[in-house]
């Protein structure tokens, strides 16, 4: 497809999406929905193609390359992985059958457990340890690196009070009433400040991102045909 045709389609699709600004009038809302449906449909279709070409085909190619010697160790491993993946995939299709859905649940359990284990290991080595390192390392020369010290203290306070903020455990008093200490309340209040500040920053930067994308599209429309 020529570049001009692609540009024209992009132009029309952008206008269709922007028609949402005009509200829910029958015609314009149809245009918006049509653009969104096209986008979602094409994304789903491309995902299917990409999965076939990028995930399934390589396994088939591996097996095909070594099909002359099934006893070859590498080939056995490839075939085993492929057959296992295929079996798991087929079992997922049994979900609608109530009497066999436990098979699907079992496969999902494996996926979830493996995914959770991977995530936990990654979170430890990639997030928690570096974060702990960042909040516990004090500069050798505090006077020379005062900014770093302040940052470290802020990160420590923010992390700890933020974690404390999401703590809902109650303390049982002598009169069997539930309550919390004033210190805990103060720490949670500090955590609330950090959380709200963080959310505010995220909201502001998200708006900035959206504005950037909006500007790019408006610029594209303005330049169209020039």
């Amino acid at each position: 497809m020529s570049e001009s045709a692609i540009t024209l389609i992009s132009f029309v699709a952008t206008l269709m999406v922007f028609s949402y600004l005009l509200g829910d009038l029958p015609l314009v809302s149809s245009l918006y929905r049509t653009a969104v449906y096209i986008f979602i449909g094409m994304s789903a279709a491309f995902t299917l193609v990409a999965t076939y070409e990028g995930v399934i085909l390589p396994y088939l190619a591996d097996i095909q390359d070594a099909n002359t010697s099934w006893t070859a160790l590498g080939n056995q491993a490839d075939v085993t992985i492929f057959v296992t993946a295929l079996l798991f995939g087929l079992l997922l299709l049994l979900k609608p059958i109530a009497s066999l859905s436990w098979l699907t649940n079992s496969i999902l359990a494996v996926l979830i457990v493996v995914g959770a284990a991977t995530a936990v290991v990654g979170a430890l080595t990639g997030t928690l340890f570096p974060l702990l390192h960042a909040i516990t390392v004090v500069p050798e020369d505090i006077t020379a690196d005062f900014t770093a010290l302040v940052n470290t203290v802020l990160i420590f306070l923010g992390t700890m009070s933020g974690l404390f903020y999401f703590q809902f455990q109650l303390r049982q008093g002598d009169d069997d009433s539930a309550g919390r200490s004033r210190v805990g309340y103060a720490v949670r209040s500090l955590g609330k400040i950090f959380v709200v500040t963080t959310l505010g920053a995220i909201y502001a930067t998200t708006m900035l991102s959206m504005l950037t994308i909006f500007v790019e599209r408006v610029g594209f429309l303005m330049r169209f045909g020039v």
Partner: protein
Amino acid sequence: MTDDFSWLDYEDEDTAADAKRPSRLSGLRRLAPGFLRRGDSSAAESPADEASPGRLRRMFGALPAFIGRFRRARSEVSAADLALQRGERPIEDLDDRLQALRQRSSAHPDSAAESTGQALYDVDDVLVTPEIIHRPGGVISAVALSKAQQEQVALLRDMVGGSAQTGEAEPSSRRIFRPRSGFSLDAAPQLIGSMLLLLAIALPFVSSDFREGELPPSEFHEDRHGVSTAYSLLDNLSRDDFVLVAFEYGPTAAGELDPMADIILRHIMAQGSTPIIVSSNPIAVSHARNVIAKIERSVAPAAISFEESRDYYLLRYLSGGALGLRDLSENFDSIIRFSSTGKATGLGLTSLNDLTLMVVIAERADAIRNWAEQVAPETETKLIAATGYAAQPLSQPYVDGSDEIIGLIVGIRDVYTYGEKLGAIYADYTPDPGRVVEQPTATRTPTATATPTETATETPAPTETPTPTATEIEPEALPLGAGPATAAPATVEATLTATATAPPAAVVPSATATTALIEVIEVTAGGLVNIRREPNTTSDILGVAEAGDVFEVIGGTDDGSWINFLMADDIAAWIAEFLVDQYQMPLDEFRAVESASVGSAQSVLRVEFPLRLGKNRPRLYQVDPPGSPERPEIVLLRDRRHEIAQLDAMTLGAIAAILIIVTGNVFYAMRGLLQRRRGPDGQ
């Protein structure tokens, strides 16, 4: 926040009380009636429970018997059940805000809180739900809701107390929403705001007169070490290098991240390096192909064309999110064997350590987190992170907390600065459409060496001026054995530039010779020795020196084990005492030595911290980039015509958005006040 969850404290009342006041049931029990039993454990074994196996079956399918036993035991020790046994907190124990909320709810006895249909009891006392006005239309207008969807909508409405507020009867049958037939004035504020924003954004594209604010600087701010480092790492790439570029964004973020991907890919390819593109998002793989196609179209006038599996690689997408990334880090040799279309790539890399660099361009902080968690810990190769504004706050800690992750390059303002830096380095190159440049540096070096000679001979005054040292400096003589091959020409340029402007300064000292002595050190150790920021071996390496280099001493540690001296550009640094000889030298002689060894002195590599670009190729990164592109046209032919207009539009758009938000809030606040003054009957 904890007070917001005070509904946890409510007492779990007995069955008789429940019958009398069913709305006082615990919110937790209403949320998960299948799990939360009464406070006494015997309830879990009640006949009613045994008589309803269908609930379990619906939730879990056909489960083995031991699961049921587990569930029964769970209800006995549930923390939630323990919480339910707590007594109701007296109202006077609540803080002022919650007491006010309680009073307000008491003032409306018919509120939805008393409805038995409430799924979250008392939550609507805390979370003040806006009035839900049912009006056909909206984004999902004309969508036919299935029965299950209608039930979900009803449940959601119950949860937020919407149905009681609207007082609208629930539809008993399938209903089709139809869009409105005409324009409503209710939509006018949104439309006006949108149009104002659109106008503010469009104006800079019409005329350059509509400009507000300043453009981003041409250099990254000195406090932003990470971005400068990222830039320099990319600028130190050479022909043999492979760079893994992760496209972790789709078309929806293309407006923000495409320029970033564009300039990073151009930079990599202009250096002669090869990008290997990968993604855990299948759409992003396709999008990356479009970005490369766009670059190729822009450089077509210079007769430059790209070929997949030669100039770049597009790997198959990594399915499974974090699992896919873990697969990449552990089975890299397997992953890179196939392209996105299932064809063999022919790449012979065996691990991530064989890469020179990794770059992640991500739309969301989750992607940065996944790469930081699943890939970065598994390799010694540095990871450069680049994101949009939205992902910056949550991505920054990963950059700050790890020496392995460099960055953060953020948004179009950084892209502008990046382009300015590249433009300054490549300014000597003139794009010549139709000219294929094989070795641009080869034609450049002789020109550079000729310049100082001419300048020196034309200098009239000091006839005893020594022969300009520039002619003595050959690229081969530079101590860059451990550095990238491309570094030599750039260093020559830097040296010659300094020398070309130096002759008068170099001559004057000899004419005004001084006998003042200064303390100097001369490197005596063989090979390259480290120069550090602080007097300890764990400090950042600022650069390297070799035997014969002479520097001016400015101090030292008390025990004399470390010496403080001035590097080129008067940068203070430290070196271990046993590596050098310390003695005094006349100032003029020192200047002459410095002049003679200017090549060595200025070619000292300065780094913020020691870096290894690839496991098998230890290298030091230069603050002063070599800037020796293989194909400069790839960078120079980048279309930057609309960058400034885009930045101006961003500024005006942000101002307009803030004004619209403030105006809107003031408008609605005033309207609310007026309505309150008039009273509920409108009088």
